[in-house]
């Protein structure tokens, strides 16, 4: 099996790099898959792009068709128009079993900034769905991603990783918003974007007592839908600047590729109300709020996903026992997946061997029937069952040996020997 992943994440690359390499929106992804197919026609591909990571999985039956690290980096560079040297040092690569283990860790949130966060599973599912929709998946990536989703479910049910504060939004609200505000029932929350992240942050804020919710979104209808869910009002993006001055908490979580709130806009908003603290949480990657906004005055508290890293690290250390248990499950599942993959590689030989021996036994049974016509159907059935048992018993040792060999990798030598011994041809 030839499976590779190249990736950069919150541990290897800064948000500046990640946001430049991110794939935002279905159109851009579709374009990416088209270009991937053109460049690597024999490869399956899945792109996973979230605020914390950009990962590109490729797989192919034939090792010779596997794209190299430089070729994949070159694709990212060309696609995003970012010179390779600017991010090559931040780009890591795994292949084979390591790549499988990596995806399992990602999907189980071991690799996430916030340990145990549930969003990553839906993000992996969505990435897989997009790849399927763009016909970029194949047997290997199908098996891999389906298995990864199953493993993440097992990790969540068998460990306590998903207990406590397990999302970026909850960490941001718990660690920082509560450090600024004593209560939220008298605060106005403005949410920019109407996606899953925005909704989840609203959930935490409402748990803290928020009542006054405003949502702005490119699609006003979607904004109104989300706002109605939380008893608020929804607007189109054109109302953003007018609504910002009244907001105490601003949560930005859109898929935009440029900052929606720039310094000039925010400076106008802050004019005359610099005495009033404002908590701005930017969950976008690329960022939705220009980082320079933070320097406008002392009462602007702006946080982006990278700013939450230290807090998340403390969270991670406090659950180190659970990480050990989760890693043990992942290692076990990775081994099983790899054995299945290797075993699958022996499938065609085993199938042909069985078919060949079955043909031989069937022919011998037909000859026997014509010679011993006096035998009844019951007697013929008995003989046929005996012959089948003999065939199975004779096949058992070579197939068992094949299965044993397949535990550590595709048993090319044994497959070759079996083909030659039993005259199995493609």
């Amino acid at each position: 099996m030839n499976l590779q992943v190249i990736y950069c994440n919150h541990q290897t690359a800064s948000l500046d790099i990640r946001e430049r390499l991110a794939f935002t929106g279905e159109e851009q992804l579709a374009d990416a898959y088209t270009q991937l197919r053109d460049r690597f026609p024999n490869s399956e591909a899945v792109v996973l792009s979230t605020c914390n990571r950009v990962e590109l999985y490729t797989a192919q039956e034939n090792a010779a068709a596997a794209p190299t690290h430089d070729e994949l980096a070159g694709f990212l560079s060309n696609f995003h128009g970012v010179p390779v040297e600017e991010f090559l040092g931040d780009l890591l690569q795994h292949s084979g079993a390591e790549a499988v283990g990596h995806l399992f860790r990602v999907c189980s949130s071991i690799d996430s900034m916030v340990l145990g966060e549930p969003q990553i599973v839906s993000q992996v599912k969505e990435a897989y769905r997009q790849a399927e929709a763009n016909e970029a998946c194949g047997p290997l990536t199908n098996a891999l991603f389906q298995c990864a989703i199953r493993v993440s479910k097992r990790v969540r049910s068998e460990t306590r990783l998903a207990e406590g504060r397990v999302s970026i939004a909850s960490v941001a609200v718990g660690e920082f918003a509560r450090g600024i505000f004593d209560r939220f029932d008298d605060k106005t929350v403005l949410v920019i974007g109407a996606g899953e992240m925005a909704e989840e942050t609203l959930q935490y804020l409402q748990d803290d007592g928020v009542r006054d919710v405003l949502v702005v979104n490119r699609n006003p209808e979607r904004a109104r839908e989300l706002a109605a869910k939380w008893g608020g009002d929804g607007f189109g993006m054109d109302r953003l600047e007018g609504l910002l001055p009244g907001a105490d908490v601003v949560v930005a979580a859109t898929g935009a590729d440029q900052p929606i709130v720039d310094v000039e806009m925010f400076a106008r908003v802050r004019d005359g109300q610099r005495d009033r603290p404002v908590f701005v949480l930017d969950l976008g990657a690329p960022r939705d709020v220009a980082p320079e906004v933070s320097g406008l005055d002392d009462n602007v508290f702006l946080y982006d996903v990278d700013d939450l890293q230290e807090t998340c690290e403390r969270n991670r250390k406090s659950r180190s026992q659970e990480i050990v248990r989760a890693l043990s499950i992942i290692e076990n599942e990775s081994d099983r997946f790899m054995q299945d993959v290797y075993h699958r590689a022996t499938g065609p030989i085993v199938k042909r061997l069985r078919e060949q021996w079955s043909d031989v036994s069937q022919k011998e049974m037909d000859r026997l029937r014509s010679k011993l016509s006096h035998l009844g159907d019951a007697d013929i059935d008995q003989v046929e069952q005996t012959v089948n048992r003999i065939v199975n018993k004779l096949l058992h040792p070579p197939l068992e040996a094949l299965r044993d060999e397949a535990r550590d990798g595709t048993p090319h030598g044994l497959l070759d020997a079996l083909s030659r011994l039993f005259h199995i041809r493609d």
Partner: protein
Amino acid sequence: MADVTIFCFFASYTVAFALDVLRLKRPKRSTWMVSVGIAAAGFVAHTLFLLNAADKGREELLPPLLSSSQDWTLVLAWLVVGFHLFLTCCDRALSLGVFLFPLVLGLIGSSYFLADEPSQLLNAAESARRGWTMLHVSSLAVGSAGVLAGIVLSLMYLLQHRRLRQKGRSATGLKLPSLERLSRMNWWSVMVSVPLLTVGMGTGLVLLLSGSTEGRELSLGDPVVIINGISWLGLIGLFGWMLLTPRATGKQVAWRTLLACGFLLVTVVGLNVLASHSPGFSEHASVSSLGANGDPVETGGPS
């Protein structure tokens, strides 16, 4: 009970402070319990010591607890520790001890250098003035506790503000209330303490002007009066500014409170220490109104 010395509770508070600092690195429930236990033991010893002092005061027909400079400082420290224990028991996560214990230890440490003899202002012979005297010293003590609270709350505000602006990259393990709450508490500490200090100063002046201190004359040009007057004016300025500037930022309020209250605290404690050690200076200090617990020349000296 009579064997309780200042060192007993000073040592307890020092250990509690060290444990609170340790909690910043290793926030364990057991450390919190030991720290609160030791602080509570110190508080009990502190209370017993003050009750002893009050008994002594009664023998000499003096107002309890506030009869000398040393008593006054120790009562102030006692109020602060009581405040700390109350808040810490309400919210275990709060890192209040790291801010309050240095002040408490500073006050108790400075009390070593203050006289423990009764003040002439509290002359027992003047029974008609006792009510005024008690009002004077009590309002000064509670007002000063408010000033201490203002200092601590401002420090906490500035630290929390810095932590939040630096995205939590500093002060790891330090759990502080929200900026909104700190700002509100700071505002109230100034609003309560300034009028109380003003009452204390006013009654002090009345007591002095009524002329009972064996022929001493009050001079408005006296350096002690001037220094205390400036401190008080600083607080009045802060008080007025806070009332008239509702749109001031929390950080501005915290800095101004810290400067005004810090200056007042250093001035009051400094003048009292000087008064206890310098016979010439103590004469001035004894007629100061903020340092109304100033001691007579004859009795000055470390306890």
